[in-house]
């Protein structure tokens, strides 16, 4: 019996880990290429979730159907935030950069509260909402399974984009040395815009997938944003593969730690592991710096 509960916890943790991983990959891409940590990344996710929610509430679209819309809206948001805010502070002091996106996160959270009330909302009767797969004594929820599959697929696409295409290599060259890349004829401005678009699209996708089993409220970004920061520190700043691997690990630690010690402590366990890694291996698990 206990074994089955543990197995259930591992499965749940693993599946949630893929979603954390997707959120973190987006954050890592923006950090790696555009050299700015987006403290509003969690709030971007919140907006992705609200996009899916309103598509369902207003037009009756299932979150899986409205995925392209959530992805598109968030990609556009990323581009706007880059062009209007972060582009202007690329060469500004670190503190300015931190406060710009930190301020944006507070603004977006307050805006969501103002527009849509602080109430928590849940999509009812989504296609995959009530389905689950039995595996021995363990149940796997269909929404979580779909979300994990979506995350893996998205990671595959981003990995291919970065490692195998010319655009990806130009993007990595820009990440390594902006001026040198520009001298090679690479339009670095375009690369920054692309990183913001793709990085933000990740949370559009993650947000859409999450709404099938997670309720949305204005503060939801705090949990996911903090977790994503922990994940990319754990995986190594700027490493996309590292972020993905660390996301899965964090998902597992959170659920299994919560199971062994008590659910109230699940974030404490994650943050403890993070502190240990930062002390022992500050460059993260797969870090390049």
């Amino acid at each position, binding site marked *: 019996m206990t074994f089955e509960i543990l197995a259930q916890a591992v499965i749940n943790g693993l599946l949630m880990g893929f979603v954390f991983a997707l959120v973190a990959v987006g954050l890592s891409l923006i950090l790696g290429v555009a050299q700015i940590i987006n403290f509003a990344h969690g709030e971007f996710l919140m907006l992705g979730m609200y996009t899916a929610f309103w598509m369902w509430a207003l037009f009756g679209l299932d979150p899986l159907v409205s995925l392209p819309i959530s992805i598109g809206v968030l990609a556009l948001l990323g581009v706007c935030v880059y062009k209007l805010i972060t582009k202007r502070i690329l060469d500004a002091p670190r503190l300015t950069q931190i406060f710009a996106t930190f301020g944006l996160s507070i603004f977006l959270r307050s805006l969501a509260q103002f527009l849509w009330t602080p109430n928590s909302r849940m999509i009812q009767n989504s296609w995959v909402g009530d389905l689950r797969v039995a595996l021995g004594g363990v149940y796997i929820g269909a929404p979580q399974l779909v979300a994990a599959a979506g995350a893996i697929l998205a990671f595959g696409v981003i990995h291919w984009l970065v490692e195998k295409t*010319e655009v990806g*290599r*130009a993007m*990595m*060259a820009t990440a*390594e*040395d902006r*001026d*040198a*890349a*520009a*001298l*090679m*004829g*690479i*339009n*670095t*401005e375009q690369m920054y815009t692309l990183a913001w678009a793709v990085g933000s699209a990740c949370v559009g996708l993650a947000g859409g997938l999450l709404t099938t089993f997670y309720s949305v409220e204005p503060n939801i970004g705090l949990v996911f944003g903090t977790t994503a920061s922990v994940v990319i520190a754990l995986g190594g700043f700027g490493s996309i593969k590292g972020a993905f691997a660390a996301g899965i690990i964090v998902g597992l630690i959170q659920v299994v730690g919560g199971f062994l010690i008590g659910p109230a402590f699940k974030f404490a366990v994650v943050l403890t592991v993070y502190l240990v890694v930062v002390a022992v291996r500050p460059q993260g698990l797969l870090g*390049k710096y």
Partner: protein
Amino acid sequence: MLEVNNIHVSYDGVPALYGVSFRVEEGEIVSIVGSNGAGKSTVLRTVSSLLRPTQGSIRMNGEELTALRPHEVVLRGIAHVPEGRRLFNRQSIKDNLTLGAFTRKSQADREEVLEKVYEVFPILKKRLGQLAGTLSGGEQQMLAIARALMLKPKLLMLDEPSLGIAPKLVDEIFETLKEINEKQGITILLVEQHVHEALELADRAYVLQTGRVVTEGTGKELLQSDAIQKAYLGI
């Protein structure tokens, strides 16, 4: 070919160039020499649009460059080998070279340029898979020049190619520059602290001192001038 007219440049309000003018004619090798901090790198960075002049104009074959972005300057046929080489150290030699070819659309065109570059630097062809960061200083400089040649430039600008390189290799690199100029017809603008070598190589040269051009002439003239000999050559 390149006409720089009275450019003024500052870093955060601190002036670095006070009205620098010079020109580079097609097929020439032109050197800008001067001591550390004279503003030599600033000149090249401004031509490449990495810095914006507060005044003055920079024209390439009559076209004004100062309003362009750096990658657009590259498309006008100006390649810049920056100070300290600035290779993509986490990428292989091959990837560093082909990155420089993104401006080429056709695959056949790229192969052709690549073959030409291997002719100049055969050593690179043997080690295509090696990471750029693991090369020696001299090899890195060769790769940096090769990467710039991949852009098929009309004008090649080099910032201190001798920096951190064994003296024997410095001669070799200067020989290579001469060969590139003669065989491929690429115009060269060289910025150097090794004044003697740079003047020997150059058709014409400019001496830069604290942000101003103080002397100009043919390489030979400057080599023999008393002022240069006293100030830079220690004779």
